[in-house]
């Protein structure tokens, strides 16, 4: 009992430190500019919810709902593509031997080492040549080809933890390579697959540079671009609270997705996994 109370106290103390900025952000959406920059206390002097309505409506002809939809049009295919392709590729690396395997693995690792901003320009030219600028293809298509080397690397590490005897047993039961993957490996590493989906979701939500460069019609802007539509540090100033209100609304899906997924991070088949 005493142990449990200590655990709760510790958890709560850390949790407060972790979420305080979020609380502050919500409070700040009701503050004036001078109040925002002069107080660390999250509670605003007064509440005026109309800021949320104008934030939702935005100055553009579209509401935030429109930008949410755009974002989901990118995120959903991207997540599906990323998971499918990464799992297949990781399975190939983790369980099979093939010609030039070391070379391909080195290339996979190497593709993670180059900072994204240098490859952004050549890719932009490529998309421009293919005539697909201002569509969601540049944002989603690479995921179909296991473009996130990091996910493949993660999956390989976790797949290696699943004892090979499991595969062997499945094979004796007459399962082929793909069946083994779906019936044996995937259930064992489900938590990682959930994590990868969540990461794709959250990172795509926050990604700013790729859509900024590739999307030019305001109508097609994802949320991350819409959130910065109004902030012009070079200009005559703006009501900070409205931008903050937009970003609070924008955080809701991310927080919700994480909260919904977190249970799956742990539960699963207890056998196998990263032992050894």
């Amino acid at each position, binding site marked *: 009992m005493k142990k449990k109370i200590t655990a709760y106290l510790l*958890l709560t103390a850390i949790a407060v430190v972790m979420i305080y900025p979020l609380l502050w952000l919500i409070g700040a959406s009701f503050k004036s500019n001078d109040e925002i920059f002069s107080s660390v206390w999250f509670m605003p002097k007064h509440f005026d919810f109309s800021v949320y309505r104008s934030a939702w409506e935005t100055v553009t002809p579209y509401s935030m709902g429109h930008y949410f939809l755009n974002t989901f049009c990118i995120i959903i295919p991207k997540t599906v593509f990323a998971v499918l392709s990464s799992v297949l590729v990781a399975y190939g690396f983790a369980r099979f*031997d093939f010609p030039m395997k070391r070379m391909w693995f080195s290339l996979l690792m190497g593709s993670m080492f*180059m900072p994204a901003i*240098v490859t952004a320009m050549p890719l932009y030219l490529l998309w421009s040549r293919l005539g697909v600028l201002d569509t969601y293809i540049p944002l989603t298509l690479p995921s179909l080809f296991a473009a996130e080397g990091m996910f493949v690397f993660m999956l390989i590490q976790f797949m290696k933890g699943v004892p090979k005897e499991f595969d062997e047993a499945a094979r004796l039961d007459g399962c082929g390579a793909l069946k083994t993957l779906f019936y044996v490996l995937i259930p064992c590493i489900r938590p990682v697959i959930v994590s990868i989906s969540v990461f794709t979701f959250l990172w795509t939500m926050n990604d700013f540079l790729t859509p900024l460069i590739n999307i030019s019609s305001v109508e097609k802007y994802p949320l991350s671009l819409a959130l910065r539509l109004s902030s012009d540090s070079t200009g005559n100033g703006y009501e900070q609270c409205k931008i903050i209100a937009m970003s609070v609304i924008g955080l809701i899906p991310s927080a919700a997705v994480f909260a919904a997924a977190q249970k799956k991070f742990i539960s699963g088949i207890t056998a196998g996994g*990263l032992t050894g």
Partner: protein
Amino acid sequence: MKKRTYNNPVGVGKYTGLLLITPFIAGFLLFTLYPFAASFLLGLTDYDGVHPPQFIGFENYRELLADSEMHDAALVTIKYTLILVPLKLIISLLAAMLLNLEVRGIGIYRTAFYVPSILGANLAVVIMWQFLFTSGGLVNQLIGLTGADAVSWYGDSRYALFTIILLRLWEFGSAMVLFLNALRDVPKEYYDAAKVDGCGGVRSFFAITLPMLKNVIFLNLVLQTIAAMQEFNAPYMLTGGGPMRSTYTIGMMIYNEMFRYHDAGTANAVSWLLFLFITAAVLILFRLTGRNREDSI
């Protein structure tokens, strides 16, 4: 040429694996090879993004190797990585163990612990850090209570890097999630057995938990090292690289050369140097953890 034998399960040919990784191979040829080649070639040119690139051989690299800006950035990046990565691994592992407890409402805590990582580069984070670390900020007030002198977090080149490290330590979410994914695999019976043998919590942590987690520790080590060496956003937001370049990372240098100074040739050359640095770091990690590449695949 020596004939290679392929170590596959009975009945599986050497092309099954190749077939499975086709998406990667195709993607590599389509979307990675070309930007990499382009970037390498541009690194050999003098290119301002407007005039046609002029081929100048390895001139950019020669200049960089003698450039004090490059030296400073490399040192800052190395220092940053060496301090941040181990601390972040420790913190995220401890947090994951805490969140692995089976108590009611643990889901709320898990979400709360991840909130900073969702916030990422949000304005709130920048302002919060200002309230914490500026001269009259909360941290200095706490330090003041102990009677010590206030620390000049932002303005002193000895400390500025720590404000950034602290920010990234606070955003430990993704490493924590990976640890959580792995922790369930440590069977409870092991701990029970250890208890019977008279092992305390600390000893069973070192004797059971750590060895069982070695794959995921390695995974996080590699991923966090790569991320730290590419760091750009945190110094860009919090310090702008200063004071006196004490937080000026290679990532910031690439950004500046590329977008602010319009020197794409140098930007690409720096990127390739960074690429080599990271490759070296990752190879060292593979070596240190006793994995050759064959084994880790």
